């Protein structure tokens, strides 16, 4: 009896969840993701059949969920460029992506945050960070009449620290002289699941608020001083839509495709910038990027740069074990930096600016196999 009541349904449920969560969310983006997934699955099955005949090379990768739509598009397009190789990507989370590349169970990893020194030290060889595209977090809210909102770093930090608790707080009304902000409680909604989105947001708050940096810090999951947590962009959006007076952060891509209201944020130069693909690319161009490409691009000093932005990376070993796979991977990465980057804006991702693109190509050229 004891044994039979062990929650096996937890395990089963995880499976079911991963299958059903796609069908459950009605947003266009999700449907697009499903179609892509189905498409790549179907293509995979067909190619797998063909592969047996033509000895097709399979390159496996796993990691971040945020860039999944664009990676999936890249792999699909690239299969037309070079039919002899097939890329298989599982979007299982940045943490799992880092772990799998460290253990060598995949040929490449993907992560929304750079790997820590501690994790890199555990790797059997040198792992290169290849930045691919950038995205941003937007601050979205539920206010009567959806007035345009202007926020700055200290205000956002104050709200998420639980110190600014009313919409008509003088610190907010000062930034928004025209808007009619109600005399109501601010209800904070944040991500409950660990995510790259949270990393970017916490990274930004740490850079603009010493108090946040000291009390909370940066990470894919943090100890939130205020509010309630929801799962995924869709969960946060759902909670915000249901609670008048709520505020939270979601991915730019998600907010644009679902037509959510979002605030313009004061950047390091002092301009209020509306989040967009262009202002995120401007942020990438203004960010100081070291040679190992492990960079943070929040609050960079560009006039048009949107401050709450972050890049996403592919993780590959500099010394490839399998020469054939290594060669194919380098060919693909070079293609991604040229043709692939052009596809990014269509899917609402910010491509790398030309100068950075050149540096990344040089890094890719250094992969040995």
């Amino acid at each position, binding site marked *: 009896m004891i044994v039979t009541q062990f929650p096996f349904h937890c395990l089963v449920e995880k499976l079911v969840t991963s299958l059903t969560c796609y069908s459950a969310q009605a947003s266009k983006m999700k449907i697009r993701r499903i179609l892509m997934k189905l498409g790549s699955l179907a293509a995979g099955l067909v190619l797998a059949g063909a592969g047996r005949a033509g000895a097709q090379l399979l390159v496996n990768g796993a990691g971040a969920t945020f860039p999944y739509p664009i990676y999936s598009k890249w792999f699909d397009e690239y299969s037309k460029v070079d039919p002899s190789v097939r890329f298989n990507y599982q979007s299982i989370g940045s*943490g799992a992506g880092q772990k799998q590349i460290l253990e060598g169970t995949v040929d490449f990893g993907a992560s929304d945050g750079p790997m820590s020194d501690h994790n890199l030290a555990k790797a059997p060889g040198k792992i290169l960070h290849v930045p691919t595209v950038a995205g941003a977090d937007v601050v979205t809210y539920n206010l009567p009449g959806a007035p345009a909102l202007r926020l700055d770093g200290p205000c956002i930090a104050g709200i998420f620290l639980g110190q600014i608790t009313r919409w008509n707080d003088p610190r907010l009304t000062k930034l928004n002289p025209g808007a009619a902000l109600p005399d109501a409680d601010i209800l904070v909604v944040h991500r409950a699941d660990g995510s790259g989105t949270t990393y970017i947001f916490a990274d930004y708050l740490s850079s603009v608020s010493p108090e946040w940096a000291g009390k909370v810090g940066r990470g*894919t*999951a943090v100890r939130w001083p205020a509010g309630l947590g929801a799962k995924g962009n869709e969960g946060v959006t*759902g*909670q915000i839509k249901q609670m008048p007076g709520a505020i939270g952060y979601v991915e730019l891509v998600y907010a644009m495709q679902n037509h959510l209201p979002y605030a313009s944020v004061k950047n390091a130069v002092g301009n209020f910038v509306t989040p967009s693909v262009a202002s995120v690319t401007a942020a990438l161009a203004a960010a100081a990027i070291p040679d190992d490409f492990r960079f943070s691009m929040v609050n960079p000093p560009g006039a048009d740069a949107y401050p709450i932005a972050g890049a996403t990376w592919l993780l590959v070993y500099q010394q490839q074990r399998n020469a054939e796979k290594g060669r194919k991977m380098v060919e693909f990465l070079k293609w991604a930096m040229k043709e692939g980057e052009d596809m990014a804006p269509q899917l609402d991702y910010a491509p790398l600016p030309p100068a950075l693109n050149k540096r990344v190509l040089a890094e890719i050229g250094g992969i040995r196999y």
Partner: protein
Amino acid sequence: MMNASIAKKNVVLAPPSKAGDAAFKLLTWCMAMMVFVLVALIGWELWQGSELSLQKFGWRFLIRSDWDPVSGHFGALPFMFGTFVSSVLGLLIALPLSVATAIYLTELAPGWVRQPAITLMEMLASIPSVILGLWGIFVLVPWLRDHPFALLQKVFGFLPIFGGHIYGASVLSAAVIIAIMIVPIITSISREVLRAVPDSQREAAFALGATRWEVTRLAVLRGSMRGIFGAAMLGLGRALGETMAVTMVIGNSPDISASLFAPGYTLASAIANEFSEATDDLYRSALFELGLVLLLVTIVTNILAHLLVGAVSAPKHDAHA
């Protein structure tokens, strides 16, 4: 002549081999053992996975209430609290509903109501929990927040459990969702239990002049307590491990709050939410340990439940005899 030849043949036949029986016994034994092996393996894996966290925090993991992945401080108490409160509350809401439904379906309902109702109940059980969770976010929680919760606070607001700000997403909302999820299982098992009561027992009670209620109470329910209790425990088992729908409505804040309107967190939700992006070893290990705690909580609850069932049902058996 015929008889003699048959008798002769019988004598010639070798006695049936016992090998088949032995093999069958061994095979079923192996299958039965698989369950134990599986649970032991799961326990062992969880123990292995949580080694770092066990070393660092020891048993204090169970009483620590901070959960800060950035600075590496982990404790399970808020999650245990949330799991316990939401499950037990869910069970308290679901149990009277389920037992009443089961009584109606077995004792009172006309045939044309019974079968559709049973089918609907089974359909309710097969709704994926993520669907219930979405319905929870968009329909149930806003309604609960604006009507029942507001009313509860108006009337009982002086009690700390109904105090504080009403967000909507809360421990109480999670309990309501859990109740909806476990009603089908408790109802259908209770129904089976009530159906197992022989009709002769009901007829005997009617013959003694008992009313419908007395028949139900004395002839049917009294002997079924143990079974209904078992059904409730199965429901509780499901409630403890329920993940997806609960995550979507509980608010996911690892705080221990007196108010049922405050957001909370459960063991299963924390694992589901945080595992995929846990890049740090200690963090992952602490999540493993939450899994271990959940396993232990489930086992301990079951053992306690069995002891309770024994205590509850023992005198009833005497009454029967």
